[in-house]
């Protein structure tokens, strides 16, 4: 997600007096988010801690996080994009029809109040979860919210940040951006990286039955993906690397047990605000690390002829002249 207006959680902790959680349930999914960063901490700029901060929760149902919020906005399911677009219009004093507002399940008073609070905040931060980015509209929703955050900067400091899920998904994004220029959904089939979610993203590739082998590491699609995708994983040779024998391992040709990251495997993990943190594993595992196993597989493949028809490696431009 290049071009997003964001910041680190440290800045949120020190400065953010207006917090929005959109389509996320931090109370249950990121239990220490409130206490460590967004709500409870006191700082030089917010000496009274929780009392100096306003928290708004936008979600389709009243989750446990609603208890921690000052304002809870219950948006009609699938209407997030419309609501964000309305807010984008309202902050610029553009006309919005009553029907359009009623369609989102909210009222004009509530939205006017919200816009007023957003504009009078000193530092606003919007966190968005899977309830926004994985429902109708998907990444268009995230893009709309990021645009809203960017546009709010005409009035006051505003940022947005995705609430990333388990493990090191943020690290995967960052690492792929660094290595290929794109965050996910990449193919190397022309010898250089190309990006097209929908065409090269895993669910689509599997459901269409495009790929003829799968290497799965640190994930369990056998437990989460739609059935046609799982069926395709059963048809093709699948290789799984995981600390546990997972659903996917059971339908795979090859499973290799590896050491769990942060507990027995050392390395680096990225926090949701893209701050890299070193892992401090206390235990020694009887299993090898992911890094070691993937490197060994890489070396074994390197010993075989390259996939170009004549088996030669692609040459650098300088080598060709």
């Amino acid at each position: 997600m290049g071009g997003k207006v964001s910041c680190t959680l440290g800045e949120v902790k020190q400065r953010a007096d207006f917090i929005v959680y959109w389509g996320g349930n931090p109370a249950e999914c990121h239990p220490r988010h409130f206490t460590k960063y967004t709500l409870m901490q006191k700082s030089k700029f917010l000496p009274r801690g929780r009392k100096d901060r306003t928290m708004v929760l936008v979600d389709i149902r009243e989750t446990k996080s609603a208890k921690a919020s000052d304002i809870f906005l219950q948006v009609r399911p699938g209407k997030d994009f419309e609501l964000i677009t309305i807010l984008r219009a309202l902050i610029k004093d553009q006309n919005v029809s009553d029907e359009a507002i009623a369609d989102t399940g909210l009222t004009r008073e509530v939205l006017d109040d919200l816009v007023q609070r957003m504009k009078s905040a000193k530092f606003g931060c919007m966190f968005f979860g899977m309830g926004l980015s994985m429902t109708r509209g998907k990444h268009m929703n995230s893009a709309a919210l990021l645009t809203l955050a960017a546009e709010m900067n005409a009035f006051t400091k505003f940022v947005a940040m995705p609430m990333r899920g388990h493990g090191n998904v943020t690290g995967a994004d960052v690492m792929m951006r660094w290595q290929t220029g794109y965050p996910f959904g990449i193919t190397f089939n022309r010898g250089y990286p190309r990006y097209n979610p929908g065409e090269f993203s895993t669910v689509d590739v599997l459901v269409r039955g495009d790929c003829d082998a799968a290497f799965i590491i640190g994930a369990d699609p056998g437990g989460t993906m739609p059935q046609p995708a799982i069926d395709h994983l059963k048809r093709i040779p699948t290789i799984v690397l995981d600390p546990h024998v997972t659903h996917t391992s059971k339908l795979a040709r090859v499973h290799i047990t590896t050491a769990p990251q942060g507990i027995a495997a050392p390395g680096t993990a990225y926090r949701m605000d893209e701050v890299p943190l070193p892992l401090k594993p206390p235990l020694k595992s009887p299993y090898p690390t992911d890094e070691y196993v993937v490197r060994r597989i890489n070396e074994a493949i390197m010993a075989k002829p390259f996939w170009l028809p004549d088996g030669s490696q692609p040459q650098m431009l300088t080598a060709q002249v």
Partner: protein
Amino acid sequence: MSLQVIDNATCTFCGCVCDDIQLHYDETRIHKANKACVLGTAWFLNHTVEHKYPDALIDGKKASLDDAIELAATLLHEADMPLVYGMSNTTCEAQKECAALADQLGGLLDSHTSL
């Protein structure tokens, strides 16, 4: 027996990646994870160094690590359009190796983000 202690250990269970956890551990398991939340505590305490699973499985049968690596390399090399997917619960160092793998195979590379 007295337990060893690590200060400021990092929890990778959720995106918060809290780096202030105090772990009390011995050779086999972690006994206490101070400051971690319920999810983090469960994550740390559930892992032990026991040899719970076989090193590797090929077609559901126990196999050696070397055989599994060799077969994995062969299967991926034979494929025309291999997919490298996942990378959530692993380190950046391993993720970098995965990018190299997809690059060298001329395959697909994708993470959990695209779901």
